[in-house]
């Protein structure tokens, strides 16, 4: 991948590849990366432990990376074109958030970035996304489940965005300039995702017997992972203490208040399904994941891992 394609001058106009890697100015996706945080003040605020800030940013970044990938799997598979585009747009927003958050994590503490061969053009956020094993990812388990039907996507996007929006509303006050800016931007995007999922939730609940049955099945299947979203990991506690992060336990009431509005409109009772336990108390934030994440990463990372020196 590092070797450019050579053509003799006379066949240059014959080759579809000529110029691809030479002048990318007319391509929307260039072959070189810009630093997503270029020009942003990435100084670590006073009194904040760099490793704590990095791991905290990694947690939020991994949530959006994994959720984005799962939602992107809906592209060309949604029930109709409008929802295909809607889900793709939601995935794109989350991918943008992931990129900024992983870049922020790398900038705060370079030692968390996997080492790639000397001269690899992969930027740090890509090294984090494509060269970590499942047990190194810190995402909540709700994000990683294998996709189900459209009702499952609706419930998952609803639970995820209700929770994340409640977190981001508070994260706007972070003492870390980057996290505060990502949150301020993310709030606008997540509000849109939440309203989209909430409207579909109500629509499916009041649609046909079949749509309601499917919605309830998805809701009962995902609800056991809701409490994990509000567990306080020691890193989150330390980040909150330092004024850069938000303790998720403190937004539970706000998030459930919003969720209750949706459930009331859908005429659905709060689920009583018990929470899904971790393994010896360890859950997604500790790097304890289910098998689906390993499979997802195997697919997502295979090309980057096969070509660590690749230029895209």
């Amino acid at each position, binding site marked *: 991948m590092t070797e450019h394609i050579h053509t003799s001058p006379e066949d240059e106009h014959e080759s579809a590849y000529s110029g691809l890697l030479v002048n*990318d*100015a007319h*391509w*929307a*996706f*260039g072959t070189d990366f*810009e630093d*997503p*945080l*270029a*020009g*942003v003040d990435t100084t670590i605020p006073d009194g904040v432990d760099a490793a704590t800030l990095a791991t905290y940013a990694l947690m939020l970044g991994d949530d959006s990376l994994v959720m984005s990938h799962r939602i992107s799997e809906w592209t060309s598979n949604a029930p109709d074109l*409008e*929802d295909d*585009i*809607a889900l793709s*747009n*939601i995935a*794109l*927003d*989350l*991918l*943008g*958030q992931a*990129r*900024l958050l992983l870049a922020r994590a790398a900038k705060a503490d370079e030692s968390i970035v996997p080492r790639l061969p000397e001269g690899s053009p992969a930027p740090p956020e890509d090294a984090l996304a494509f060269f970590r094993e499942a047990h190194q990812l810190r995402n909540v388990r709700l994000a990683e489940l294998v996709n189900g039907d459209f009702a499952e996507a609706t419930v998952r996007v609803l639970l995820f965005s209700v929770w994340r*929006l409640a977190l981001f*509303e508070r994260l706007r006050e972070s003492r870390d*300039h*980057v996290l*505060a*800016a*990502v949150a*301020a*931007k*993310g*709030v*606008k*995007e997540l*509000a*849109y995702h*939440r*309203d*989209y999922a*909430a*409207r579909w939730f*109500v629509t499916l609940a009041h649609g046909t017997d079949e749509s309601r049955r499917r919605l309830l099945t998805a809701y009962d299947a995902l609800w056991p992972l809701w409490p994990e979203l509000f567990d306080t990991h020691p890193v989150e506690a330390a980040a909150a203490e330092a004024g850069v992060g938000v303790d998720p336990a403190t937004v539970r009431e*706000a998030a459930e208040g*919003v969720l209750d*509005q*949706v459930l009331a*409109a859908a005429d659905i009772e709060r689920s009583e399904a018990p929470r899904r336990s971790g393994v010896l108390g360890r859950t997604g934030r500790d790097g304890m994941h289910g098998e689906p994440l390993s499979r997802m990463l195997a697919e997502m990372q295979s090309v980057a891992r096969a070509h660590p020196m690749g230029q895209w």
Partner: protein
Amino acid sequence: MSRKAERARRVAERVTDPELPMLSLADLGVLRDVDVVGDSHVVVDITPTYSGCPAMAAMRDDLVRELTGAGFDTVEVRVSLHPAWTTDWITPAGRAALAAAGISPPGPAPSTSGPIPLSLLPTARQVRCPQCGSPATELVSEFGSTACKAQYRCTACLEPFDHVKEI
């Protein structure tokens, strides 16, 4: 502002958005600052519209190409994340250009301070058809061909059209 910086700004203002080519980056409100440091080093500040907007890389490349083409030696494009971009920054000229191209310009952006209220009904907007001017329009989808647009349909002339959604 120095004369050089003014010239650099005029060049940078000409660069258009790759997905809304009727809009210059200045009209879109994405161009925050243009300055010339030293003899011929241009520093441009832009702000992303959406976190994952793939057009940002193209905007950066276009700025570098136009400015170096105008004779500046080096160009540095910086990204300002704060304050977050809002559609309120689209200029009146930009709104007119959108409408002329058949895209309905955004209304005032909703407030995003404090808790964001849940909205279970489709976003109520007074959207006029950019083709025939009729106010009889209906929402097809909150998500359009790009992250920044919603899809509408005019029930008078039956034409579909894009609406730049308010954020």
